[in-house]
């Protein structure tokens, strides 16, 4: 056939077909997407420090292991309150003339998703220590350490942030470990990663492929069944207070043998979980874990009972009703 024997016609046709399809599935949808989406009106802009932090997030290739996308499937619920939408990324423009747009959605989740990490783990002290040596806070972590974001000095200067590192992870270092500006910026960026709630009145997209309700354990003395306290503790508490409940000296207090955990002042205990705590200068600030992660009264009760009965702690379990009452009270005063 003449067509097949004429290189201009043959290669021209193949190229034309490919370019046509490229227009249809890549160029036109991409242009439409970048023109027809605007950021949510209540979305916060990144601070200067957070922007600088994003640059080192990009430079160090963090996206190789951390995604920033909440898919509309049930298993992604733990990474955000709602599935991600195009508007969430609409504010992200080309980094500069030399570098492309960094939506940082990622394709690998070797480590956790970071869409909402600013709500889940806002503590600066935790994040700095975690960057200096991830295994100091999460024993099983395989994340690289980033010691080049820190420097060793003899004195902590004004406005400088010292990182308290457990002895096991500061071998060969004598002096104070100080966070460089790059580390502070990177943490500022992580703290800024928060899912923007949809403007009032809008229902978010549904999560698909719902998990069936988990069978609830009945370790509550025959009372209402509760979710698994150990899992919830691992997900919400262990990164600071550690799996063995002993915390980290100079950073996070132990819950093992803690008078608050073992004692009878349930109001105080629940309020710390729900609203955070910042009364002891020798420890880092605790964020409002319960509120930030939308913990239900059942989940809070399960965590409390797990903490009261583990690692040699032997206080009596508490009842769901009492916890519910306290949380209702906290919520109603918070609204006023």
């Amino acid at each position: 056939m003449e067509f097949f024997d004429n290189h201009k016609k043959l290669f021209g046709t193949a190229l034309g077909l490919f370019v046509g399809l490229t227009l249809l599935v890549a160029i036109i949808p991409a242009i439409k997407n970048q023109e027809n989406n605007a950021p949510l009106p209540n979305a916060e802009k990144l601070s200067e420090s957070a922007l600088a932090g994003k640059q080192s997030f990009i430079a160090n290739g963090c996206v190789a292991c951390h995604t920033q996308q909440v898919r509309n499937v049930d298993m992604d619920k733990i990474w955000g309150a709602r599935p991600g939408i195009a508007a969430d990324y609409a504010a992200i423009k080309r980094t500069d003339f030399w570098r492309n747009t960094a939506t940082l959605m990622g394709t690998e989740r070797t480590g956790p998703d970071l869409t909402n990490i600013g709500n889940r783990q806002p503590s600066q002290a935790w994040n700095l220590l975690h960057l200096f040596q991830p295994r100091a806070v999460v024993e099983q972590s395989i994340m690289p350490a980033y010691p080049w974001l820190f420097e060793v000095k003899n004195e902590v200067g004004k406005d400088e942030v010292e990182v308290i590192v457990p002895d096991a992870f500061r071998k060969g270092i004598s002096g104070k470990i100080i966070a460089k500006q790059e580390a502070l910026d990177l943490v500022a960026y992580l703290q800024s990663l928060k899912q923007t709630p949809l403007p009032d009145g809008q229902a978010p997209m549904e999560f698909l492929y719902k998990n069936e309700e988990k069978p609830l354990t009945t370790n509550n003395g025959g009372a209402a069944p509760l979710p698994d306290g150990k899992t919830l503790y691992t997900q919400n508490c262990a990164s600071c207070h550690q799996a063995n409940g002993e915390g980290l000296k100079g950073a996070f207090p132990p819950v093992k043998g803690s008078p608050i955990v073992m004692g009878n002042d349930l109001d105080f205990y629940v309020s710390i979980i729900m609203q955070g705590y910042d009364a002891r200068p020798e420890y880092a600030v605790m964020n409002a874990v319960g509120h930030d992660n939308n913990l239900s009264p059942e989940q809070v009760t399960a965590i409390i009972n797990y903490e009261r009965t583990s690692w040699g702690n032997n206080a009596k379990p508490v009842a769901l009703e009492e916890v519910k009452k306290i949380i209702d009270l906290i919520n109603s005063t918070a609204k006023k």
Partner: protein
Amino acid sequence: MGNINLFSEGGIVITVVLILIPVIVASLIVIVRTNASLRRYIKRKELERLTNYIKELNPAETEQLEKRKKELEFTLNNAELGTDLPTLDPKGLIDNVNTVESIRFVQQKRKGQPRPFIEPELTRLILWYLGCAVAWLLFGTSVGEYVGIKFAAPDIDHLSWLSFGRLRPVHTNAVFWGWASLAMIGLAYYVIPRVSNVPIASIKRGYYSLILINASVIAGSVSLMAGINNGGGEYREYIWPVMSLFGFGVIISLVNFLKTIAKRATREIYVSNWYIISAIMFLLVIAFVAYWPSWQNGLGETIVQGYYMHQGVGMWFMLFNLGLMYYFLPQQLNKPIYSYSLGILAFWAQILFYTLIGTHHFIFSAIPWWLQTVAIVGSVGMVIPVVAGTTNFLMTFNGSWNKLTGSYTLPFYLIGIIFYFTGSLQGTAEAFRFTNLAWHFTDFTVAHSHLTMYGIISFMLWGFFYTIVPRLTGKEPPQITVGAHFWLALIGLLFYTFPLMYGSTLRGLMWMEGKPFIDTVTFMGPYWLWRAIGGSLMWFSHILFTYNFYVMLRRKSDVELPKSAAEILQLKKETTINPQA
């Protein structure tokens, strides 16, 4: 870092050791080579002395030797039981006859075919391409091996330039643009003039292209390690100025190939050229769309990214290698391709369906749902070209399976074809919405990309290397190290991918059950270790490959000393006729 003792850091020690390895190896090579030339020199002197002595032989001594020769040559005449008529073999069909003299640990395979005429300048160009490709394979997979080890030993070093997030793209880009791309273009410089039956349009342009591509990978690797990257899209980590070096390099070769095809001496354009030229044109379109530095805000970036990364593998590496396969396979089997039309069907079907499937890397994400569905449909459509291609290759093989055992190149072809089938169809399966739930974001994707980029592309390329390099240089690689290369690469790949796929599936299921995330990290530990073990085998096979390549390029033939009486006489005859020799 203040007062840290550098040599108590595992990473430093390892880096030093890693740097020492090539140094030690290089010194060994120098010693071995000096030794060899020394021996050659001594033998040559000996030969000279012997020659002089032989020249002086008196008739009595010659007679003595003549007599001894006769005695030694006494044999039965082989016609005691049959005929003594000479064997008639006017077409030289009886060749490569060998008898078993000792236990054969390594099966004797067929030698490469005699060398066809190829311009020496073109030979040199092709060998430069292939040599650079081998160097990038060694570099890229050494980095990959190191990155794999980091999963088991995250504190192995604390250097910013060697940290995981920076090295991972160095590995992927070096094997993509350095190893596979240079090898493919180099092989195309062999195939295109052959099937067009004319010499290549310009040798010089070939070198320009080679230099630009190498420059791009060098600049890209250094800038990635220094923390300069494009912002996160996989395989798009080089910034555009770096990638444009690659692009210009490819344009130069494209022009060169098109000019060659335009003045072809054959009427038809062989199907290999369809695939190869299209692959090059498409790569340029893809790179241009993805790198044009003034667009892609917001999700536009993600849509283009999905398009880019999948067209990169499917339209560049796969299409190009299929084109090479359509030349090399029939040629190695010494028979035409089973069906020319199936090849043409696969060609158009590949363009039609493959172009659609890019966004299947972002299923359930915030990009438009219809686009995700199109991608899934396209992924299913890929069954057509894959089945057509595989059928075509296997049917070409059919009837020649016996050649497989006698050839050291064909096993590479066959494994490549098998992985073409399984690897591509696995991609289709991964695109379904449900499997995506369990597998997406896990290392399953990593296993898949190694099954395809390594199992298909690299195996095919190795087969092509072992086919043409002996023809270009006239030197064969040692069969034992070719066999070891093949088996280590294959077994390594299986150790790499299978545990990773199994573990990742379970990890995905754990995520779906809502297990704590860190538990799923601990769970993957043993599977990551298996991956590192498999990776080490693969890496070792590349060292053997490099050695084989070196042998095909450089091995000198030994100086032969005359030993038997016949050889001495022969030498005397030669030196008497031509005293200068």
